[in-house]
C-alpha cells in the first residue's frame, strides 16, 4: 500500500510539472537585478508584463519579442519580469483580440506585423489597429524578389519580358492568400501588366525549399529570411520593394528604380491595449528607445535580419500605423480582396 501512496505522490508531482510546462509563460527572473536607482520608484510596472506574440514560437514576431525581452532583461531596464506568451491562430487575430480585450491595461503588450493591418481589412479579425495604443515602432522590414543562383533572370525586366512572351509561364511561390508576399505578387502583376502562376505554401520555410528545389522560379521574401541562402550562393535577390536600397543588399535595385511604381514596407513595433495610461506608454516607449540605441539590438536583431532600423515614438508610430493600414486597404481594394 505504501508503494501506491508514493506512486500517487509521484503522479501528482508529474502533474505539477505538466501544469508548469503547459501553462507557464516562460518566466524570467529579473528579480535578481537591482532595483532601479531612481529615488522615486515609478508606479508602472508594479507586476509582470505579458508580451503577447500572436504567432507560433520560432517565427518572425516571436524572434522580435524574445530578442526585445532578452536585451531588456539582461540590462535590467524594467524592474518587473516580462513573459513572452505565444497565442497563435487565425492569422494573428486570436492574439490581437486577446490583447485588445484588456482595454486600458498596460500589463499586456503585443508585437505588430503585417497581419495586424491585413486581417481586419479582410474581415478575418474582430479587432483592428483602432483597438490598440501604439507604443513604439522599431524597425522597417520589406520584401525582396529572390531567384535561384543559376536562374536565367538577373533583373526584374527580364522576368517581365519573359512573362509577357509566355503568360503564366513563370511560377512564383509564396505563403497563403493574403500575406505580404501574396500581396506583392499581385501588385507586381498589376503594375507590370503580367500574369504569373502563384503557388501557395504553408510556411516561409516551405516556400524557400520550393525555390531551392526548382519547383518555383520566383519568391518574395523578407531579406533576413533568405540571407543565409544568399551568403551560401544558393539564391540571389533581383529587386527589393523598399523605397530605398537596403543594407546587405546594396547592389539590388528597388522596384521604383526599375520603373515599377510600387513599394512595400512593414513596420515592426509594439502596441498596448487601447486607453492604456499615458505614463505607462511613455515608460515603455523610453525603454524601447534605449533598446533601439543599444549595441546588442544592432547586433542581435538589425544585422541578423537585414532590417532597416527606424525608431518611432508612440505618436509617430500611430501615424505610421494609419498610413500603412490605408496603404494595404488601397492595395486590397485594387486586387478585390477587401471584405465588402
Amino acid at each position: 500500500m505504501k508503494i501506491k501512496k508514493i506512486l500517487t505522490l509521484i503522479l501528482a508531482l508529474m502533474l505539477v510539472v505538466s501544469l508548469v510546462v503547459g501553462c507557464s509563460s516562460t518566466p524570467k527572473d529579473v528579480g535578481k537585478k537591482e532595483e532601479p536607482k531612481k529615488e522615486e520608484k515609478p508606479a508602472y510596472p508594479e507586476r509582470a508584463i505579458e508580451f503577447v506574440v500572436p504567432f507560433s514560437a520560432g517565427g518572425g514576431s516571436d524572434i522580435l519579442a524574445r530578442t526585445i525581452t532578452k536585451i531588456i532583461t539582461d540590462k535590467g531596464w524594467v524592474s518587473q519580469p516580462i513573459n513572452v506568451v505565444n497565442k497563435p491562430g487565425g492569422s494573428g487575430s486570436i492574439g490581437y483580440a486577446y490583447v485588445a480585450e484588456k482595454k486600458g491595461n498596460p500589463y499586456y503588450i503585443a508585437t505588430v506585423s503585417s497581419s495586424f493591418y491585413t486581417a481586419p481589412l479582410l474581415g478575418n479579425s474582430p479587432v483592428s489597429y483602432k483597438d490598440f495604443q501604439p507604443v513604439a515602432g522599431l524597425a522597417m522590414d520589406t520584401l525582396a524578389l529572390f531567384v535561384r543562383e543559376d536562374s536565367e533572370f538577373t533583373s526584374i525586366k527580364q522576368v517581365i519580358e519573359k512573362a509577357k512572351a509566355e503568360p503564366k509561364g513563370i511560377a512564383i511561390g509564396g505563403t497563403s492568400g493574403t500575406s505580404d508576399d501574396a500581396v506583392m505578387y499581385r501588385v507586381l502583376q498589376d503594375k507590370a501588366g503580367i500574369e504569373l502562376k502563384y503557388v501557395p505554401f504553408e510556411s516561409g520555410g516551405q516556400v524557400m525549399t520550393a525555390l531551392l528545389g526548382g519547383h518555383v522560379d520566383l519568391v518574395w521574401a523578407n531579406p533576413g529570411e533568405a540571407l543565409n541562402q544568399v551568403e551560401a550562393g544558393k539564391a540571389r535577390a533581383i529587386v527589393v520593394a523598399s523605397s530605398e536600397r537596403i543594407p546587405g543588399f546594396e547592389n539590388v535595385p528597388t522596384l521604383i528604380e526599375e520603373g515599377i511604381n510600387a513599394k512595400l514596407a512593414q513596420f515592426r513595433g509594439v502596441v498596448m491595449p487601447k486607453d492604456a495610461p499615458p505614463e505607462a506608454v511613455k515608460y515603455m516607449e523610453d525603454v524601447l528607445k534605449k533598446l533601439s540605441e543599444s549595441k546588442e539590438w544592432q547586433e542581435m536583431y538589425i544585422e541578423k535580419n537585414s532590417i532597416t532600423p527606424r525608431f518611432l515614438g508612440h505618436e509617430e508610430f500611430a501615424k505610421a500605423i494609419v498610413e500603412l493600414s490605408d496603404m494595404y486597404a488601397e492595395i486590397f481594394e485594387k486586387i478585390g480582396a477587401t471584405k465588402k
Partner: protein
Amino acid sequence: MLETFSSLLYGFTVAITPINILYCLIGVVTGTIIGALPGLGPSAGLAVLLPITFGADPVSGIIMLAGIYYGAMYGGSITSILINTPGDSAAVMTTLDGYPLAQRGKAGPAMGMAAFSSFIGGTFGVIVFTFLAPALAKAALSFGPPEYFALMVLGLTTLSGMTGESPVKGFISALVGLFLGIVGLDLVTGKPRFTFGMMELFSGIDFIPVAMGVFGIAEIIVAAEEKVNIEGLKNADLRWHKLFPSAMDWARSKWVIARGSVIGFIIGMLPGAGATIASFISYGMAKKVSKHPEQFGTGAIEGVAAPESANNAASTGAFVPLLTLGVPGSASTAILMGALMMFGLRPGPMLFERNPEFVWGLIASMYVGNIMLILMVLLFVPVFVRVLQVPKPSLNAVVIAFILVGAYSLNNSMFDVWLTIGFGLLGYFMKKMRYPGAPMVLALVLGQLLETSMRQSLILSEGSFSIFFARPISAVLMVIALSAIFLPLIKSMLKRVKVKNVSA
C-alpha cells in the same frame, strides 16, 4: 570520409565536456518526460524551455534543446503502451499493438522493443546524418508538390490496414478525418471553410486535440464504464531481464526496424511531413509486407517496432533541412531554428563552415544522447510500469488532467481544451459502435497535406494530372501506391478465375 571522421572526433571533444554532457542529460530526461505526458509534445516543451538556455553557451543550449526534441520520441511510446494514450502525435500508431501487448501481460517486452527500436532508428539517423547530410539535403529538395502528393497517396493506402473488423466503418472514419482536414482558411484563396465564424478554426483543426480525444479521453471513459481487462497489466513480469525482447521478437522485428529507420529518416527530412507521418507509413508498410498481417492490431511486436524506429529516425532526419538548408520542416524545428538565431547563429548552408564546433558538437551529442536515452528508459521501465498499480480512478483523473493541460498548451487557448473534450465524446461513441479511431486520425494528418500538394501541383501543371506521372520520384511513388491498392484485387480475381477453370 576521413575528413568527416576527424570532424566527428572534434565534435566529440565538444560534446563530452562535463557541462555539455549535463545539458544533454537534462535535455533527454526532460524530453522523455514531456514526450510521455499525454498532450504535451516536443514543441510545447521547447517553447517553454527555450528561455532557460539563453544564459548558456550556444552549443550547450542547442544540445539541450535537441535532446528534448528527440528524447520526446522515446517518451511518447511509454503512455501509448501502458494506458493506450499516446504521449505525443508520433506515438499514436504505437498504441495499436502496444496496448494489446500490455493487456496480455507483455508490457515489458513491448516497452523494451519500443526503446530498442527507438535507439536503432535514432542512431541510424545520426549516422546517416553524419556522413550524408549535404547530399541528402539536395535529395530532399527534389521533393516538390507532386512528390508530396504521391507520398500522401501512398500513406493513405496504409489505411486499409487499420480498418479493423469492418472496412466500411473504417472508411467512414477515414472520410470524417478527411473532412476535418479541410476546415480552416483555404490556402489558395484565404477564405474560411467550415469555420462558422470562429477565429480559432481559421488555422484548421489541429491533429493533437483529435488524437488526444479519440485515443485518450474516449479510452478512459470506456475503461471507467466497462471492466477492461487489466489483470494482464498488473501481473506483468517486470524483472529487468524480461524487458529484453526475445530472440523470436527480434527475428520478427529486425527487418521492420531496418525499414522503419530508412522510411523514417527519408520522410523526416521532408519539410512538412515529419515524424507522425513517418510512423504511419512505417506501420502500414510493416503490415503490408508481413506474413501474418492479421496479427497487427492485436498485439504484434512488429507493430511497436515499426512506428518507434520510424519516428526516431524522422526526428533526426528533420535536422537535415534545418542545419544544411536553414529551413525548418516542422513546428518543433521552427522553434529550434528560432533558438539558433537568438544564439546568433544562422542555420543554413554556411553553418558547417562558419561554426563547425557547433554543428559537430551537436551531432556528436546526438550519439551520446541516444545512448543515455536507451539506458535511462531501460532502467526506468520497471518504475514506469508501476504506474499501473495506481488505483484506476486516481490514474484516470490524473491522465485526463494531463491531456487537458497539454491541449491548452498547444496555443495557450481554452478552445483546444473544449475541442479535445468534444473529440473525446465523439471517440467514446465511435468506440461503442466499433468505429476504429486510427483511420480518422491518419486521414486528418495526411488529408491536409494531400489537398495542399494536389492543388499546388495542379497550379504548376495548369490543371493536368500528368504531372504526377511525369516526374520520376512521384511516378515511382504513385506506382507503388496504385499497386498497393490494385494488387490484392487482381490477385483475388486471378484466384477466382483459377477456381473457375478448375471447376470447369
